């Protein structure tokens, strides 16, 4: 009998220890998440994932689907209609006055109209859009390959990243959306500046007049309402220096998973 009582009290003691240790650890994890060292340590995984993913899938194409797979309505997420006076003015005239600026580290800065972009080489693809939140939608996109636009502008040798400056204000300070990718995605054949969705003019809810498709990364990389493309050697001077609006709020710059 004595041993049973010992075993029972041992059980109680160990389970209580476990429960309180667990609770303390969780509180510790929450507190550490708010410090800067912990996210930095955890951020090692982002670099590891990027290297590993580029190693196993260097230049492959994203899966393309058929019309049968199209989502009945392509979900609009984030901004659905930019609350910006200038943008609203452009939208009111179907973006005929809109120009895409291409500048930064390029030999020939450009200002391209929608009409000019539509006259350039085009690509149509039915792809799946994976949101960081966990949902996905399938849409048909038509647009000009980003590489074709950059060939016109001629990147300077020191250019390493492409930054998208957008029209949609994200907060009370009026910070407008910005994103960046490197040349691995820039020159991928499926990276296009899309002006059509499902065979119709790109709706405002999905980023009119122009949004980028980066099919091997998550949705937040695919900037909508693009106004200007800037080539840079480093994005430390843009926003808080992490390469994108959501990146500055703690999301990974490399969004391959």
């Amino acid at each position, binding site marked *: 009998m004595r041993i049973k009582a010992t075993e029972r009290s041992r059980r109680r003691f160990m389970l209580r220890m476990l429960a309180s240790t667990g609770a303390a650890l969780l509180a510790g994890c929450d507190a550490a*998440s708010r410090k800067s060292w912990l996210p930095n340590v955890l951020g090692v995984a982002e670099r590891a994932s990027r290297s590993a*993913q580029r190693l196993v899938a260097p230049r492959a194409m994203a899966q393309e689907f058929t019309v049968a797979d199209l989502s009945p309505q392509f979900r609009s997420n984030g901004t659905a209609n930019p609350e910006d006076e200038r943008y609203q003015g452009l939208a009111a005239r179907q973006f005929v006055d809109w120009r895409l600026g291409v500048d930064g580290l390029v030999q020939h800065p450009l200002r391209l109209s929608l009409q000019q972009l539509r006259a350039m080489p085009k690509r149509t693809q039915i792809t799946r859009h*994976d949101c960081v939140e966990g949902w996905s939608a399938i849409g048909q996109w038509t647009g000009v390959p980003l590489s074709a636009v950059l060939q016109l502008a001629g990147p300077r040798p020191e250019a390493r990243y492409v930054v998208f400056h957008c029209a949609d204000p994200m907060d009370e300070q009026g910070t407008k959306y910005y994103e960046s990718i490197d040349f691995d995605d820039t020159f991928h054949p499926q990276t296009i500046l899309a002006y059509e969705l499902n065979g119709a003019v790109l709706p405002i809810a999905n980023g009119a007049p122009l949004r980028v498709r980066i099919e091997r990364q998550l949705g937040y990389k695919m900037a909508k309402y693009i106004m200007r493309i800037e080539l840079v050697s480093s994005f430390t001077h843009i926003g808080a220096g992490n390469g994108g609006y959501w990146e500055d709020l703690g999301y990974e710059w490399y969004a391959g998973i």
Partner: protein
Amino acid sequence: METGDIPLDDGQLMAAPAPPSSPPAEAWPRSHSYQRHSLPVRIMHWVNFAALAILLMSGLQIFNAYPVLNWGRSSYSDTPPLLVLAHGFPSWLTLPGPRWLAMGRRWHLFFAWILVMNGLAYVIYTVASPHLRRDLTPTRSDWRSIGQSVIDHLRLRHPRGQAARRYNVLQKLTYLFVIFGLLPFVVLMGWALSPRLDTVIPGWVDFFGGRQSARTLHFIAAWTLVAFLFVHVFEVLVSGLYNNVRSMITGRYVVEDEHADQSH
């Protein structure tokens, strides 16, 4: 007979001297201890447990950003969702506690690497050492005793004596299923959620029903691991919590010798 009786018997023995030739031990329960789990196995067991706990809780944080499960190639098709949890999982189950997708992802993707590295180390170890062959592979007599093992488990009867030194057949099969089935599967379904890894062989996720199906399978596999954990902890409790936990920390496991059993 229980070990609690030993001091009393011991005293009697001291009081009544026996002829030195008689082996005094045989009359009492005797136990011996041995090294049940090697140091690498112990380390990898606890690393695996910590990683899985963090992955589950941060995974629920990520799930809460879209608390819906779909089947198919995308979330928006003609197929209605399989499951909608309007409020998601409670904050005491998620890591971090409050809604914080970015931080949940950081925890999740970091410990996913820990899980995979630890798992790889384990597989290398288990194949290179006698662990897989000696401890985990069912023997011919194991296969024959499978019916008896089911009955024993249902009656919460556990092997004693020499038999307690080895895993029983249900235990072996469960461990093999978790190690070589469930854990690789949950990782693979996690990879399926990566748009970049989906390009390795474009369309490979369709083998599992499509990307959103893979997300659902990732979720189901995670909860199957939780179900395993509950059964595992239950079995640890009923077959000697202290002895089992000690053996997974220090390695030392105590086994009652056969003849002690027979003296009942």
